[in-house]
């Protein structure tokens, strides 16, 4: 069973001649391409994760940062506005309806922070001042009453004096 020199050099021919095993025409050329493609595919999967592709990941990250910044900015502005309640429509709204005794309904239309500021202001402006005013009135009344008493006494004295002394 000696192999010829030709067989030694042409392994496919050896297998064909001795074993009857054949290969399709152009198989090894096609096989080489298939192997190279398979190797490339084996190497690429790590880069094929959709969310991690640079063209996708960077814009997504940037959009996320911008959305976060906008959210924080809006929230800050909102809290600032809440601390600057002066002559806003909401306060006028509450003022008007408070006096019209529709306060409870109106309070549903404004935010809690605005409501608290309004109440603080109302308490300061209305109640405390009113109390001061009333206290002043009482003081005035007391003082006035003293004057009245004095005058009554004087009158009494004068009358008694006239009756008792003069007469």
């Amino acid at each position, binding site marked *: 069973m000696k192999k010829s020199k030709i067989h030694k050099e042409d392994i*496919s021919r050896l297998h064909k001649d001795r074993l*009857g095993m054949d290969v*399709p025409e152009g198989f090894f050329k096609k096989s080489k391409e298939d*192997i190279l493609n398979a190797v490339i595919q*084996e190497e690429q999967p790590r880069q094929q994760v959709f969310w991690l592709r640079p063209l996708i990941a960077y814009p997504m990250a940037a959009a996320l940062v911008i959305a976060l910044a906008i959210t924080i900015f809006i929230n800050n502005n909102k809290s600032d506005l809440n601390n600057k309640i002066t002559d806003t429509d909401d306060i006028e709204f509450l003022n008007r309806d408070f006096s019209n005794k529709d306060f409870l309904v109106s309070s549903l239309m404004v935010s809690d922070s605005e409501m608290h500021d309004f109440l603080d202001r109302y308490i300061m402006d209305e109640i405390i001042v009113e109390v001061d005013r009333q206290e002043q009135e009482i003081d005035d009344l007391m003082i006035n009453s003293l004057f009245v008493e004095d005058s009554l006494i004087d009158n009494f004295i004068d009358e008694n004096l006239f009756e008792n002394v003069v007469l």
Partner: protein
Amino acid sequence: MNKDIDLTKRLKDPKQKDKAFRDLLDLYQERLYWHIRKIVITHDNASDVLQNTFIRVYKGIKNFKEKSTLHTWMYRIAYNESIRYLDKNKINTSVSLEQDNNSYINNLKQDEYFDGNELQMRLHSIISELSEKQQRVFQMKYFDDLSFREISELLDVSENTLKSSYYSVVKTIEEKILAKC
């Protein structure tokens, strides 16, 4: 041997790897194919295993410690992939039982790319009657033209045992072929 050393060096260089791999395919694809084909029998099976083998070579070359030649290392990968393929597909080519012998011949006959005459079929039949180790030794030595040292590394059998086994198998085949003529 020098060619293998140079090729190994280029394969381990990331800048030269792709070009070196193409050269590797040109040098070894056909030889590895036939090494695989004789184990898995059919062309389609051999094509699949060949692709798996070269993918493993490409991915594993950076860890190749060069304790053996590149040539031997690739044959070992091809051999292991072939055995793994057979186990996975439960194609049994061992000849411990008559049923296994029939399986070898049946797979051969079903292969679209087998066109053997009577003599060639007779050779296959004789080979299928050998033990698995004897089959491998004969195929690797006679058809793949590997040295006894390389076969010893692949099959983990001493060279002396291989030599005596090989010459015994050759004698058996010749006697059986001549007996049936």
